[in-house]
């Protein structure tokens, strides 16, 4: 399904695979598209579901992320284990 709003191109990529910044940017676009409101009920429902999934995914990423620390030795990176 492809349908358009002035600012948002519907994206079918699975939400779970998106990195945070990308998911968040898409979420913002969906909010704007919905608020402009130039869409049918069906389209609106799709946007709604995708938007909520993106918001949940972002929150999950924030809650579950484990900090990754690497160490720069000479010109190479290696994992840093701490003291």
């Amino acid at each position, binding site marked *: 399904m492809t349908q358009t709003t002035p600012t948002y191109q519907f994206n079918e990529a699975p939400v779970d695979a998106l990195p945070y910044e990308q998911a968040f940017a898409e979420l913002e676009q969906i909010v704007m598209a919905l608020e402009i409101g130039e869409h049918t009920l069906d389209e609106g429902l799709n946007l709604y579901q995708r938007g909520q999934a993106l918001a949940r995914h972002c*929150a999950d990423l924030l809650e579950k992320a484990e900090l*990754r620390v690497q160490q720069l030795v000479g010109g190479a990176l290696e994992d*840093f284990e701490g003291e």
Partner: protein
Amino acid sequence: MSQLPFFEPPSWTVTDVTRYLRNLLSGDEHLQDLWVMGEVSNLSRPASGHLYFTLKDANASLRCVMWRNTVIRQQVLPRDGEAVEVHGGVDIYEAGGQYQLYADLIRPAGEGLLYQEFLRLKARLEAEGLFEAERKRPIPKWPRRIGIVTSPTGAALRDMLNTIQRRFALVEVILAPSAVQGTEAPVNIVAALENLNQVTKPDVILLARGGGSMEDLWAFNDEGVVRAIVASMAPVITGVGHETDFTIADFAADLRAATPTAAAELATPNRVDLLALLFELSERIRRSAGANVQDLKWNLAELTNRLKLRSPEMRWLSDRQRLDDLARRASIAWINRLKVENLRLEGASQRLDSLNPEAILERGYAIVTHQDGQLVRSIKDVSPGDDLEVRVSDGQFNAQALENLEN
């Protein structure tokens, strides 16, 4: 042979002498504002929190006191055997008959020279425009990659990593380990900054070190380090020492934080804020997606209402509503009445309490009776040898009258 005067001059009291000396000392401008250099000995800090020590050199010693409220502002406390410079004023402790230095600042010896050097270098670099506001790069709001230059074993690193994990763990952290004190530190820091910029291109760099003496922090006043900060491609946030420590690196940095933890906070968005933002977006989606359906429902509801208003059923409904209204008002009045009565009862019961003899006993009075229960109100009710009972608030005991003494 000289002749004794007929009237000797009156003797001074010890207090007089001491006060006189105090006046002499406190009137002397040199003695009220001076730096004294010497070696610390007999240092003690009792529970009062005041600091007592003696400053010595080869020929003399000087007792020193630093009051608690000044001690807690002192970043580094001296240790026995250490060479220091102490600032303060000389006064007399009257009760002990001792003159002493009341210290308000202690610094390691030689720090005065370091400070002069610091001011000279700062002025020179400032004149060169290295600290200009226009030169400062903006700090990205959402960094993907944060570079850290600090000691790999220090508390500063642990604090920063904890802070980043807590606030925005989605970021990638690259540590460029470096000595942060000692002679090799400046060269180390410069190399770490250059290496980070060239190899990993971070969005922002944290240059940090925990608190220490002015000498410990000296690497951050090194000209090479300052220039490396200015030359960095990524913006640099410094977090060196404590709140009150300012290094030249701080002036050159794009942003100065008071501590390593604060530097990590300035470099990252806060998870809680981001979650709140997500919630808000999700709410906006819910509202605007629902708006379409809501509009239709409204239209429908309005039409139905208009139909109803014209129906014969309406007349009956409005009578019914007036009845409900009256019933509701009546019940509210009744409830209010009950409330007033309740309050009255409570007031009366409190007044009764205050008349109760038990309450009087609580205040320390006693009731004295004969064994048969007859109250003793007057001295005339008792004869010596009478057995009596004395009641106090939590019980009673027996007593015997010994002797009648009329007031």
